[in-house]
């Protein structure tokens, strides 16, 4: 590490993950550089880079997804390596290949592995060969409704429709009976076509009481592959993760060992390198099935960092430049418990994403609290991207301490001007299934109802007073006053309260 010359690392991403990778680059003594769309000019990831290049207009197809322009940026900014973050081009094999062809280092696995894992069907085939158990389903992606319908009936309902090119829940549908099939197949097709430019879908048996459990993998270019334990990601809504934790409170020690070791073996078999995550579906009897592999750093990597002490983004960069893993499997043991809350700008009742001006923003801090975020007071949330505005992750000696710490941190998260899902998190933390630590991916949809909270009488009264005082300050904004103290008080209140 010391002997390496400082490198210029382009982070081909935006928002919190761009900031997070830039911090890792700086800790290693490298210089982080950025790309941005015109809609992101005011994102913190631009301000905190050493150099930045505008790659186009707001919609990501016109900016962050344009391979040629991103490469142009990398050349203009004299990048030695590119970290793709998550989303956007992070799992695009063509991009990884183009980066290598342009003589730069792609911080991630080989284009071949990305390509294999990027297609759900080829991923299933490869992982079956590499020794992982699969959920029964179709092997080939298709757009043919009739043959898909026939196969669905063979597998037996309920079945899952999934996008061959998919991720993040887009193009995914659960079909409970024959009647729904065609309509849902079409919708999944259209969503998948739109999101990935590839409308092919495949089918899978629906697993009952499913847990989404994933294993973090870290591998170097010298054949060393380690797991960094598992994450429980079953708190989901519409296949979007909401809360993640590590260790999983549901997995028993035997399954934990088996699933982590299986992931390592599979990655060794396919010659995986850099960071990756294998997602498993685990049923109520602790049977696990390979679901998919994400060939990049995950959104929820902080919980793994909390319990392992590793800095996965730094590890990624070092490994990409040829260093061996900084640890051996036997060096790391899970320490305590970590929970991450994804803070979305969305209506917590109707789950509608919210764009707009963040007029009030104070994020929590203190013992056992980590915040990854790119937002600030006055930040305008663009309409073009994912609505996640912050990740609050907490650590405790045990799960109970982490939950209490999470609750206090969430209650100290001041976000105003837009609606967020903080109230949802507070209610989820009090949900009996969550508290027990045995919940499935169906919890939010089947077994949870967001309660429209009515504030306490006193809260409401004090809120009304606050509003009346603010309105009072506005009304008198231009009137003359005799006392210096009064006018000073008013001018402060005017500036501060009313934006």
């Amino acid at each position: 590490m010391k002997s390496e010359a400082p490198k210029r690392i382009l982070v081909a991403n935006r928002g919190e993950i761009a900031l997070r990778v830039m911090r890792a680059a700086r800790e290693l003594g490298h210089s982080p550089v950025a790309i941005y769309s015109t809609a992101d000019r005011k994102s913190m990831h631009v301000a905190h880079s050493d150099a930045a290049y505008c790659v186009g207009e707001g919609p990501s197809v016109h900016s962050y997804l344009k391979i040629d322009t991103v490469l142009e940026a990398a050349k203009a900014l004299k990048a030695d390596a590119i970290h793709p973050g998550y989303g956007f081009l992070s799992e695009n094999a063509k991009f990884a290949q183009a980066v290598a062809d342009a003589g730069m280092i792609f911080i991630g696995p080989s284009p071949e592995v990305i390509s294999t894992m990027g297609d759900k069907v080829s991923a299933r085939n490869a992982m079956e060969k590499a020794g992982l158990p699969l959920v029964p389903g179709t092997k080939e992606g298709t757009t043919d409704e009739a043959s898909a319908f026939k196969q669905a009936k063979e597998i037996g309902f309920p079945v899952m429709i999934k996008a061959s090119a998919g991720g993040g829940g887009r193009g995914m549908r659960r079909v409970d009976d024959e009647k729904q099939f065609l309509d849902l197949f079409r919708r999944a097709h259209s969503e998948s076509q739109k999101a990935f430019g590839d409308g092919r879908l495949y089918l899978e048996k629906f697993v009952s009481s499913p847990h989404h459990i994933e294993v973090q993998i870290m591998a170097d270019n010298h054949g060393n592959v380690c797991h960094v334990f598992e994450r429980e990601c079953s708190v989901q809504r519409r296949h979007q993760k909401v809360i993640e934790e590590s260790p999983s409170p549901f997995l028993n020690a035997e399954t934990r060992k088996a699933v982590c070791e299986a992931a390592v073996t599979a990655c060794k078999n396919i010659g995986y390198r850099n960071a990756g995550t294998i997602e498993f579906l685990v049923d109520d009897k602790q049977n696990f099935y390979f679901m998919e592999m994400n060939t990049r750093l995950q959104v929820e990597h902080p919980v793994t960092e909390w319990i392992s002490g590793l800095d996965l983004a730094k590890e990624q960069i070092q490994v990409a430049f040829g260093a061996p893993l900084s640890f051996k499997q036997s060096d790391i043991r899970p320490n305590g418990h970590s929970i991450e809350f994804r803070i979305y700008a969305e209506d917590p009742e109707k789950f509608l994403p919210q764009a707009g001006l963040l007029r009030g923003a104070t994020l929590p801090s203190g013992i056992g609290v980590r915040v990854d975020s790119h937002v600030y007071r006055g930040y305008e949330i663009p309409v073009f991207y994912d609505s996640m505005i912050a990740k609050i992750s907490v650590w405790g000696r045990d799960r109970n301490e982490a939950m209490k710490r999470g609750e206090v941190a969430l209650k100290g998260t001041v976000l105003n001007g837009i609606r967020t899902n903080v109230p949802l998190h507070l209610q989820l933390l009090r949900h009996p299934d969550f508290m027990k630590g045995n919940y499935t991916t169906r919890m939010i949809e089947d077994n949870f109802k967001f309660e429209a909270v009515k504030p306490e009488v006193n809260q409401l009264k004090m809120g009304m007073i606050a509003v009346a005082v603010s309105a009072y300050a506005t009304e008198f904004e231009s009137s003359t006053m005799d006392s210096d103290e009064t006018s000073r008080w008013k001018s402060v209140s005017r500036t501060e309260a009313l934006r």
Partner: protein
Amino acid sequence: MLFYVKYDNEEHRVRVENRRGKLFVSFDDEPEEEVDLVYQGNDCSFIRNHEVFFANVVGQQSEYTVWNPAKNMQFSVESEYRRIVGKLRGQDLQQDNRVTAKMPGKIARIMVKEGGTVKPGDGLIVMEAMKMENEIHSTIAGTVKRIRVKEGQAVESGALLIELNPS
């Protein structure tokens, strides 16, 4: 100065007086009390009878939001003066059977036709925003009076999408 502050359909009167830089507030018919209010960076805090209330207030014109961890509280506020002026002008709140866009986005699919009947919970329109499809449901029973948008159209927040006739 007297203000009418409304939350949901609950309206209260809050009187605010500033005497030599000290704030006195009375709530409905309760006796007036001193409120020790200070602004601290982006937030403010009050002390009333030793009880502390931390607030982050944002707003424009008559609409304010006060942060609350369990749910941000939305208020509308009107001064006595403005209310009188408004009454003189004969303003009236309109009964709203208008379905509007809650955020900017694109109309992905229209699920109803003009003249069709709807009941509460029926899907009306699928909007696409931030890479997610979201279905907008009817909150009332009635018929579709007019559809104001087309599939594929981009709309701003607040745009009128569909007008309904309640039955």
